[in-house]
């Protein structure tokens, strides 16, 4: 049975139900545009549970708005994309909590012009841990990578190693 809880206009859009994928280890979403509905992505992420996806070890979300911002900056589209990104961020937080840091979560984000980024006002809050830098908004960078690469067995909390990979393109 197909997941259809994000049926949008026309009823042709679906999402994945990852509870049916017991062997899944890695998921990689790349979004090369800004605007429109990406709600099916967090919908798919919402089906990732420790009980049904025991082997999942890495999730990557790559958001590259740079190539399309010059052509699509309509406020309504930004709001749609922004709500999708907020939901993605919330799902990452949930996954981090439920999987107790056992999943490597990576966000690669190219926010484009600062004004567009401010409009989105998206925050990813999974950067925490002993000695780690805590930053949830990176308006000065054009490209970043946030990676949870290590879990401390002592306190059972993931240690976040912040990697500000910056490409000035």
């Amino acid at each position, binding site marked *: 049975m*197909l*997941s259809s809880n994000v049926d*949008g206009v026309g009823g*042709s*859009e*679906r*999402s*994945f*139900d990852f509870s*049916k*994928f*017991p*062997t*899944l*280890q*890695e*998921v*990689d*979403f*790349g*979004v*090369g*545009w800004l*605007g*429109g*509905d*990406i709600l*099916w992505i967090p919908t*798919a992420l919402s089906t990732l549970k420790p009980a049904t996806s025991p*082997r999942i070890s890495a999730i990557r979300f*790559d958001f*590259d708005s740079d*190539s*399309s911002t010059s*052509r*699509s900056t309509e406020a309504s589209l930004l709001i749609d994309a922004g709500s999708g990104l907020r939901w993605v961020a919330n799902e990452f937080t949930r996954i981090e909590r439920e999987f107790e840091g056992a999943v490597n979560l990576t966000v*690669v984000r190219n926010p484009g012009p600062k004004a567009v980024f401010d409009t989105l006002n998206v925050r990813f809050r999974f950067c925490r841990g002993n000695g780690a830098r805590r930053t949830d908004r990176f308006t000065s960078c054009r490209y970043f990578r946030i990676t949870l690469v290590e879990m401390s067995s002592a306190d059972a909390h993931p240690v976040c190693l912040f990697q500000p990979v910056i490409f000035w393109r």
Partner: protein
Amino acid sequence: MNGPESLNNETSCLCETRDSHHSQEIIDEILEILGHLATDSETITSLRSCSLVSKSWVPTCQRHLFHTVTFASWNIGRWLNTFPVLEEGPAHYVKELSIQIGGRFCVPEVHFQRTLWFGNVRNVTLLGNWYGRRIYPFWRLPQSVTSLAIGTDVFTLVDTRDLLARLPNLDSLSHWCDLADDRAPPAIEAVPRGRFSGRLQLIEGPAYEDLTNMLLEVPTGLRFTEVDIFCNHKCSLSTVRLVEACAKTLVKLSYGISVYGEPHSSFQSDWF
């Protein structure tokens, strides 16, 4: 030994003492290491030089020199002139074969049948744009092929199905082009019968629905462990059906999306 430079020195020494006490096993081992490092032109040149030292050095050198071969209109004749006799050529060493079957640099059709020479080839890439002629009757690829990449729009859906039906060991499939017009499909259509247990890469386009439906009809089922999908817009029903058909075996899912049809940067490097 550390790196190609040391190896080059070593092979130079061996060249000077070709009749010395070095056993063939040791020489083969050195050539194997050199072959694995043969990624730059200097090392490849060294490997070519080694192949001229002795007849006993030739097989190991050729195994690396001809591991990957690309055929286009401008070099197919060179191969045939150099290796006119199949049994004496290095075709059986080729593991990766790329053929230009359309466009400006298309290999002449008379050479298509010669792809069967490459009886141990694993990975085949077919490239070239439609240039006004349909390739028919379609030639066969060696049954040893386990990975097929189709980056050409000269095939109809029937051609593609026919091609897949002749590759029983096919594990991985990449398809990123449109299909040619399919105006006269045959009454009996071939059924893809590969293993389909490797990697699937598809890019959404006019042919996407037909291709996904064709794959979903594979009687043995799909067992892909890795699926890369690139779509121009939303997550379609066909995509969900295709991915869920591999649900029991899927290990990695990559999904790129671009509303403008321009592949996302993280996918571009891998696909193109």
